[in-house]
């Protein structure tokens, strides 16, 4: 095979920089694998390692510091057939640590070369996350305060199925790089390098010494048996292939007549667990079933099953402008939490507005008509209150009709849930027929 080195741009590093050895070895490894330039993308980021992509006659992407794996991941997911090689330095390793960990966990088929020369060469030899505490750098004493990072240990702990530590002088460098690139999965290869222009000036180290220290720390051989598993991309595509196509949202057929002829605002005040959001949705679907335009805004805290739950619904025969509520004509007060959230509204309610409130919920003073509902006497659970209140209104033809409510329910629920909702409506209707006095009406 022919070399994939860029004949127009020969490798250019500081004299004696071992990065050049890695460039040559990578080229030899790509040749050994019989890869053409079009089959390979070299992705790099900032620092001296970021020069790599320009030296190769392959696809190339050079991006922001520490982010090399983010681009490589998108590229590989979009073009699974491409051989993607990511190159970073010990600086990028520090900045992009979260990406390294995530790539180890994911196991997408990318080869990551970490060119570790123990310092930030390009910016003047500052300490990096891998600088030994005893190293002398332009960062003064700062590196003495921190533990150097052993990326091989971290990568194994994070789930990388291929982890290997080499030096730029390793005899089998070409063969080991070829093996890492051939591996189907995320392969982390750390390559210890010398930086003669910066770190090497004050921290003399021979290739032999480097090799000895690397060997002491271990991680020869690549394969990490405990992390062996299916490659992310093929796994992703296998799971995705089993998914059904997502259906378009179901259209709401107009099947009945509305009872409102103007913009009508409904406020539902309740607590988490009372299906307030769903009640708003059913009211909207009921409105749409009668040909109305609708909108719904919800308000609830970040906690689940605790705190207030508020739904604001607008029904209008005309297109809806403002989606907030200016003057609700109907307020359902189903729990104290919701009422507390909208206390300010009650004094502003108009005299022709209706407040339908659970008997135990205290209300602020209001000019609106207040009707109380004894949900306990009606044998209703908290989660049934909203639907029960709407059923009552529907029977009276206020804001919605029974036909609308039934259409809304049929659109929202299926099977057993729908049957239960219908049964609840039927029971309430029977109960009211027998004991109308249970609907006490007070101010």
């Amino acid at each position, binding site marked *: 095979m022919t070399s994939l080195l860029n004949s127009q*741009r020969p490798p250019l590093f500081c004299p004696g920089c071992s990065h050049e050895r890695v460039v040559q070895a990578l080229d030899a490894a790509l040749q050994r694998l019989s890869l053409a330039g*079009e089959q390979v*993308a070299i992705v790099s980021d900032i620092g001296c390692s970021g020069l790599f*992509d*320009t030296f190769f*006659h*392959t*696809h*190339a*992407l*050079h*991006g*922001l510091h520490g*982010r090399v*794996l*983010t*681009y*490589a*991941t*998108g*590229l*590989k*997911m*979009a*073009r699974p*057939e*491409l051989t993607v090689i990511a190159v970073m330095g010990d600086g990028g390793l520090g900045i992009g640590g*979260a*990406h390294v960990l*995530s790539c180890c966990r994911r196991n997408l088929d990318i080869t990551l070369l970490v060119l570790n020369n123990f310092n930030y060469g390009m910016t003047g030899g500052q300490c990096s996350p891998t600088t030994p505490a005893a190293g002398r750098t332009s960062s003064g004493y700062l590196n003495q305060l921190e533990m150097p990072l052993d990326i091989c240990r971290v990568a194994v702990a994070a789930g990388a199925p291929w982890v290997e530590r080499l030096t730029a002088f390793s005899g089998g460098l070409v063969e080991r790089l070829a093996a890492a690139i051939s591996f189907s999965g995320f392969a982390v290869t750390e390559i210890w390098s010398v930086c003669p222009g910066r770190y090497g000036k004050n921290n003399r180290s021979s290739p032999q010494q480097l090799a000895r220290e690397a060997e002491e720390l271990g991680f020869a051989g690549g394969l990490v048996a405990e992390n062996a598993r299916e490659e992310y991309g093929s796994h*992703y595509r296998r799971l*995705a292939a089993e*998914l059904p*196509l*997502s259906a*378009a*949202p*179901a*259209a*709401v057929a107009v099947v009945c007549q509305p009872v409102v002829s103007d913009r009508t605002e409904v406020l539902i005040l309740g607590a988490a667990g009372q299906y307030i959001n769903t009640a708003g*949705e059913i009211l*909207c*679907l009921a409105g*749409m079933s009668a040909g109305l*335009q*609708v*909108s*719904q*805004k*919800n*308000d*609830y*805290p*970040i906690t689940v099953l605790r705190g207030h739950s508020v739904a604001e619904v607008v029904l209008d025969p005309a297109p*809806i*402008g*403002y*989606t*907030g509520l*200016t003057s609700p004509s109907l307020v359902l007060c189903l729990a104290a939490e919701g009422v507390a959230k909208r206390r300010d509204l009650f004094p502003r309610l108009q005299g022709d507005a209706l407040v339908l409130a659970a008997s135990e919920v205290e209300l602020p003073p209001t000019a609106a008509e207040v009707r109380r509902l004894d949900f306990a006497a009606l044998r209703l659970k908290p989660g049934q209150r909203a639907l029960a209140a709407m059923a009552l209104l529907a029977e009276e033809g206020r804001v919605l009709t029974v036909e609308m409510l039934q259409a809304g329910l049929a659109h929202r629920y299926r099977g057993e849930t729908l049957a239960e909702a219908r049964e609840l409506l039927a029971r309430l209707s029977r109960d009211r027929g027998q004991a109308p006095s249970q609907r006490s009406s007070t101010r």
Partner: protein
Amino acid sequence: MPQIFIDGNEAIARGALHAGCRFFAGYPITPATTISQHMLQLLPPQGGVCLQGEDEIASIGFCLGAAMAGVKAMTATSGPGISLYSEQLSFAIGGEIPLVIVDVQRLGPSTGSATKGADGDIQFLRWGNSGGLPVIVLAPVDAGDCYRLTVHAFNLAERYRCPVFIASNKEIGLTRESVDLDTIALPPLAYREECPPAHSGRPFEPLAGKMVPPFLPLGGARLSRQTSSTHGEDGYITTDTATIARSIARLQAKLNTLEEEGGIDPVEADCRPGDRDLLLVYGVTARAARTALAQLRQEGARISLLVVRLLYPVPEARLRHHFAGKRRIVVVEMNTGQYVREIERLAGPVPVVWFGRMDGELLDPPTITAWVRA
């Protein structure tokens, strides 16, 4: 006219699918999260990819990699995520990488209020990148607009090879409403111009007479090259002043024709002959403004309404046309005064007054009516 009941976030996801989006990556953040959830339902069964990055920086980085592979890509977040996107946004601008970015704005500053709306990121979207080169920002008004403008956003990203923002708002993204998607007029789909065989293959060299270079995908049959560094047409880093100047001038100018040729109606105008005042809004505020306009006209006010949908590049010609001869321009915003800066510089002798509020609540019609009467 069968209607469906969806919120703005779902409308964006469905618009993206229609536009040919096949790659999405995002990190969960209220109020944008449900866009990711919808994309996860929609894309993988279509052979597309939907990923959840380890953070926002990764998510947009995934998108940049996929976009460079030739795929239409989108990400979605809110203000705090846009902050984290910043370095990658600069890359998308400088590297001319087509990408749609949804900002479902929430109340800031900083982590602010997850469940409160605002339009507080408008200038941030325009300027929140190193280098300050132009971007495209579209502002939807409602769920139907989210659907339509998302298709436009992809078209613009493809045609102009740049990041395109959809400046949504919690009050649009999470508000569900009745929409008839079938009645919404969508543009024909655009695709980035492929690099013809006769082209030099230099990845940033436009064809003769063009401002936007044809696209060579990474992983394609011809070698391609992308870099976040200052580069010449060959895609290699350069320090040559003349090359840099040429490149920056082209990036600065390439959106100049968008107002006329972008295929999008930049401004919705409700104007009557003889109107003296002009109310100017964008985003969700337009909904209340329309109601306020009707009220004011009923009272006899001679007032027009402009709803700006293309916030950036500012549709200067159209705005100037509408401003000419007006007695007063009233700008109303759901922030502390951002887009009004653009209006002031275009208004010439016409006085501009600004009203707005940023407290997490929608501006309502009575408030806007009172401001205009003031």
